[in-house]
């Protein structure tokens, strides 16, 4: 991979139905039924794609307080055929779900999106979530992240369990598949065992892009071992820069090249004509929600130039390799980003110019990974 340059800055956006703020839909007067419609979700992704954003992160949780929430892998699949050019990265939690299902779900998203799939594994922390499944109690962070490590390993090994050229369709011998190129993964771990192979062939990207949050110390070794993209949150840019260095050191410690991992800083965004107006909006939002929404990371409340300035500084000071914009209110904050902020960033030479085609991996400058099993006997 090419060394870090400003021109390689990556721009992601988190797309929920109505934005991160819990009162966003009510404040913006959105019809709750429309938030469940495919047209709404496709419209958001299309807006982001049109202005050349690299990837859309589609969060998901089983926590019942999260509000009306479609499964994000379903949303990604529903919009993939009708929104081109942008990477689609649903969250799939691994605490109460089956790694075998997750593996084929993301592999298939890669198929239906022609190589634009990613996956953000996440944990379910609460007893409320555990009670929905009734199989095991809530667990502490160290246990949860050890389980993530196993789940990601299983998912990736299952992607590799078919070699790229396993389907041979050899009419002469009557063989559809070369079974020497299909592999049992024979995974046995602390939390589960999975035999394999997958029922789904190796996806177009080989490995869809793995996105992991590394805010907790327990998550860092998992990200260092498996992530292509690491999400961080930080109260300010110096803290982000320190986190990025920590992550790059951990990646190197795991035997990988630090430039093979892209660190994206979450930036909460609500844009308005000026700072006063943006803060007044937030006050209204908080009032409507009945509680103040504390910032989860750096937050920009102000005009588009404020966001462009912050992003520019973040990249220049190497606080991150790019940012994940987290709109507090959708679709208005996304519209402002694409209409106003992206042209500013492009004008400052911070974005790649021209059209990026092909897979999400190639868009992110990541190579197509070799298959773990190639050369191994079955």
């Amino acid at each position, binding site marked *: 991979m090419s060394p870090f340059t400003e021109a390689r800055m990556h721009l992601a956006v988190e797309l929920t139905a109505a934005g991160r703020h819990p009162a966003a839909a009510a404040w913006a007067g959105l019809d709750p039924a429309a938030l469940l419609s495919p047209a709404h979700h496709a419209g958001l992704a299309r807006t982001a794609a049109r202005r050349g954003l690299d990837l859309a992160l589609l969060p998901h949780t089983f926590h019942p307080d999260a509000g*009306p929430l479609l499964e994000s892998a379903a949303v990604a699949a529903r919009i993939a055929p009708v929104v081109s050019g942008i990477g689609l990265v649903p969250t799939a939690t691994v605490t109460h779900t089956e790694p075998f299902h997750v593996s084929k779900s993301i592999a298939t998203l890669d198929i239906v999106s022609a190589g634009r799939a990613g996956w953000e594994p996440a944990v379910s922390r609460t007893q409320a979530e555990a009670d*929905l499944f009734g199989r095991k109690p809530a667990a502490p962070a160290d246990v949860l992240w050890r389980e993530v490590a196993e789940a990601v390993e299983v998912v990736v090994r299952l992607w590799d369990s078919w070699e790229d050229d396993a389907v041979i369709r050899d009419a002469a011998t009557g063989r559809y598949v070369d079974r020497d190129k299909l592999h049992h993964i024979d995974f046995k771990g602390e939390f589960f065992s999975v035999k394999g192979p997958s029922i789904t062939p190796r996806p177009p990207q080989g490995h869809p892009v793995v996105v992991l949050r590394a805010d907790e110390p327990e998550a860092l070794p998992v990200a260092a071992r498996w992530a292509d993209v690491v999400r961080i949150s930080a109260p300010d840019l110096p803290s982000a820069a320190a986190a990025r260095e920590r992550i790059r050191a951990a990646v190197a410690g795991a035997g990988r090249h630090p430039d093979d991992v892209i660190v994206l800083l979450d930036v909460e965004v609500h844009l308005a004509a000026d700072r006063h107006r943006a803060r007044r909006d937030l006050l209204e939002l908080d009032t409507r929600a009945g509680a103040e929404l504390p910032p989860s990371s750096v937050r920009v409340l102000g005009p588009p130039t404020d966001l462009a300035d912050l992003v520019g500084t973040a990249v220049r000071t190497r606080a991150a390799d790019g940012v994940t914009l987290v709109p507090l209110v959708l679709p208005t904050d996304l519209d402002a980003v694409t209409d106003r902020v992206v042209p500013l960033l492009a004008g400052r030479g911070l974005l790649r110019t021209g059209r990026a085609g092909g897979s999400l991996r190639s868009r992110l400058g990541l190579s197509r990974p070799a298959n773990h099993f190639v050369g191994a006997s079955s």
Partner: protein
Amino acid sequence: MKKQIHLGAHFPGVNNTTVWSDPAAGSQTDFSSFVHFAQNAERGLMDFVFLAEGLRLREHRGRIHDLDVVGRPDTFTVLNALAAVTSRIGLAGTINTTYNEPYELAVQFASLDHLSAGRAAWNMVTTSDAFTGENFRRGGFLPREQRYERAAEVVAVTRALWDSHGAEVEHHGPQFDVRGRFPLPPGPQGHPVLIQAGDSAQGRDFAAATADAIFTLHGTLEAGQAFYADVKARLAQHGRSPSDLKVLPGVTFVLGDTDAEAQEEAVRIRRQQVSPATAIAFLEQVWGRELSEYDPDGPLPDVEPDVDNVSITRGRVRHARDPRVVAQEWRDFAAAHGGLSIREVVIEKTGRQSFIGTPRTVAARMDEFVQRDACDGFILVPHLTPGGLDRFVAEVVPELQDRGSYRTAYPGPTLRDHLGLRHPHAPLNARKESA
């Protein structure tokens, strides 16, 4: 008005019915194949497109079975993506209740129903084999007698969640303990259409109590009429009417410009479906022993089946009958037909298509099955991907329409509308939840 025929379109699957060696056979996994298949079925105004599922690659004699199509994409993901490129056709997926949890399934099917504007259907299967379980946390297997207990409990929990409108649901049963709130309002259909596959008495009872359609085997007209009468009669005891459950046998078909030409084509297809190697594999499945030394064009083996080796082929439904009886039947059949070879016997015993003839002949015969109450329609299982339904849509559908037995437009936006099913209502489900 004449009784109307319902049609489902089964995407050609992972078995030897699907011919991959034909020059017209395309990819089994490319999304473009699914798009072609579903859009063509929608042009033919079919009720739904249907995806099968198998959660472990089949193995034969301890190795992955390599003679048939292997592998398929994830069911939910393909159906959600198909919702983007179709507008009316129902989207039916086979999803296992043994290796999924009801809360997650409820979210997944509600999401599909919302994202497809009311076109989701669930073909519910419950497997019991430890072989498949090796891919899952749950591992192990489900005792056979618990299969329908588990299926019924999954239906009860998922329906309670779909109907909950934000209220807390609490369920405690032998299979599941689920407590909490559901994050979505009911989908446009209230409940996705529920399809049950399985012809056993237990399966029929389960279908009569809970399902909207039953995916059954196709046989003679008389056998179909007996099955149809039996299943429909079971509905009353569950407070349901005969129109609440559609009987849909899976069928194959071969079309030709003349009936004779269709018969010739049917023979050609059967030989593609049963290659020499596939014939031996089938034989080994019945005999329970390795028979690779035998000539597929030679006579059946003299050696007797190994009745103890019942798991030579794993990951597919096996013959439930005594293999010695089957072997003798095959030998008698070969002798009675002038000494058929192994491959010829396997072709005759496993491969015969349901409907063979001109589009007019096929339409007339299918209509007869429906009008004479052997079924309410069919799930079509073509032998080619992705174009296996093209000629059926272009030529048989108009014949069915000319007979007044098939729609000329979709009756409504949802799959329940297509199938003429009622929208589920709360009181019925409150009763089930407490069961």
